[in-house]
């Protein structure tokens, strides 16, 4: 537990000292919230707040988490700290889980910024009719998106092209995961593809928790899928870390920059 807590602490210190992370955390919610507001302002949707605030907040969370999967690994590679990390008695999944947890906490700021911005500048009021369901869904979203990011981090460990992969994956997954816009506006075949992403179910559960109507089976279904896919990705990440550690020791790719 000490290692987990100190890794979270070290990661928070390192991350908050980085100007680029501050930009991602603060600017992205503004951009996405404004874009979403412009798109939906005259569309006559019932819960504009759900689209604007969640759109901005969730995309901020997602960007922060992909940073934890890719950017952080790249930085550790550049600092030369991946080798001491691998050669220490602490397991890599524990270290990376702590790093992603730290980023998940920080990313909640994105949601808060999106909320305040939408309220003050766009005049969008954000009510939470089902508080417990909303915060439960938010916790489930963070858990499942973090396990998905943990999975991504294993593949990023193998390759030195992490920055390219991060940029390549960030936006398609943002759209496929229904974080900026609900996936229901995407073509059917794309929706089917997005079903394997825990973020899709998490963002759907969050939107349904903001609906003033009573919580029905679709909410519980979305929440259930969020948790289930989160657990599946967690198991997959643990399996992949075991394999990837062997691969980097065999292929000698850990320190290539």
């Amino acid at each position, binding site marked *: 537990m000490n290692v987990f807590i100190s*890794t979270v602490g070290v990661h928070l*210190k*390192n991350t908050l*000292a980085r100007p680029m992370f501050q930009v991602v955390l603060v600017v992205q919610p503004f951009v996405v919230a404004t874009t979403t507001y412009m798109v939906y302002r005259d569309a006559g949707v019932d819960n504009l707040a759900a689209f604007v605030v969640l759109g901005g907040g969730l995309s901020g969370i997602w960007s922060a988490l992909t940073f934890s999967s890719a950017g952080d690994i790249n930085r550790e590679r550049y*600092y030369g*700290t991946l080798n001491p*990390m691998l050669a220490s*008695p602490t397991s890599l999944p524990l270290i990376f889980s702590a790093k992603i947890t730290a980023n998940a906490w920080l990313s909640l700021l994105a949601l808060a910024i999106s909320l305040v911005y939408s309220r003050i500048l766009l005049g969008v009021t954000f009510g939470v009719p089902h508080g417990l369901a909303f915060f439960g869904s938010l916790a489930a979203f963070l858990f499942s998106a973090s396990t998905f990011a943990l999975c991504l981090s294993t593949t990023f460990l193998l390759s030195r092209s992490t920055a390219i992969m991060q940029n390549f994956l960030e936006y398609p997954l943002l759209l496929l995961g229904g974080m900026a816009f609900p996936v229901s506006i995407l073509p059917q075949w794309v929706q089917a593809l997005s079903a394997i992403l825990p973020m899709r179910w998490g963002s759907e559960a969050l939107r349904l928790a903001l609906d003033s109507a009573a919580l029905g089976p679709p909410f519980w279904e979305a929440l259930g899928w969020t948790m289930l896919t989160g657990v599946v990705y967690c198991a997959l990440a643990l399996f992949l870390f075991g394999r990837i550690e062997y691969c980097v020791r065999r292929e000698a790719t850990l320190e290539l920059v």
Partner: protein
Amino acid sequence: MNNTPTVIVENLSRVYETSVGVIKRRKRAIEALRDVSLQVHPSEIFGLVGPNGAGKTTLIKILTTLLIPTQGRARVLGFDVARQERQIRPRINFIFGGERGLYWRLSGQDNLRYFADLYRVDRKIAEARVERLLNMVGLWERREERVEGYSKGMKQLLHVAKVLINEPQVLFLDEPTIGLDPVAARALRELIGEIRGRGVTVFLTSHYMWEMETLCDRVAVLKEGQIIALDTPANLKQFVRGLKVVELQVLGGLNGTDERLRSLPYVDSVSVSASGHVQTLRVQTNDAQATVAEIRAALPDADLSRLIVRPPNLEDAYVKLVGGEA
């Protein structure tokens, strides 16, 4: 006293596969280590020298469980490096030369605390150890400053403190004094001596031969992935027994003098190293007098006050062994 070797390497080989070409990519195998065997004894300072690319870092990476050998076997403290890495890791530590391997945005103290946690050192013990180690390397007063503000020498000393945080039984130091100024390098060498005094086995690589001669009990010479000599520094110098070294510093070109000297029957080997505009010519010879006369004739304008004749040292033995490569 336990005389079981701390490190046992048996017929170890390591091949790297790389791709060449852009459109039509072809795989190419590079043999970094070939059939390497050696043993390192408890509390020994064991040196490994060789030209760049000889395989020194690869061998250290295998012994520190960062790489898996392609063939052969290596055991550290009785554990197999390929399969029992979890048993080895808490008991060893390592430095790869240079400034990397630290968190620059954290203070020196926070770096040590974090690595103590990674090595599962109890918090109370860790606090006392961090203080002791920072005092030992002379960084206690600067402990709260971010590492990015440290000089290269301070970072290297912090590395030394870092690798002692888990009180390792074996320490692997890959060119730990590279790029350090003479004072910092001397402080580091003294520390290495102190560390061995505590019963730690040290596996050391360096390009500075006098450093290896001073510190190491035994030295292995690695060339193109193979060990070509392994003995005490005194015994390695036997390779150049009976020879004298004529050394001359020349400002400017040598005008082919080195080539001419190589062709002389009494000259054993010639090496040239450059530092800025100054070139140092080293000639290992059976006849120092005739060699000096030859140099006088070939370089009439050279300042011969910079010419010395001396008995050979470990560096001369190394140059002879690796065939002129420094």
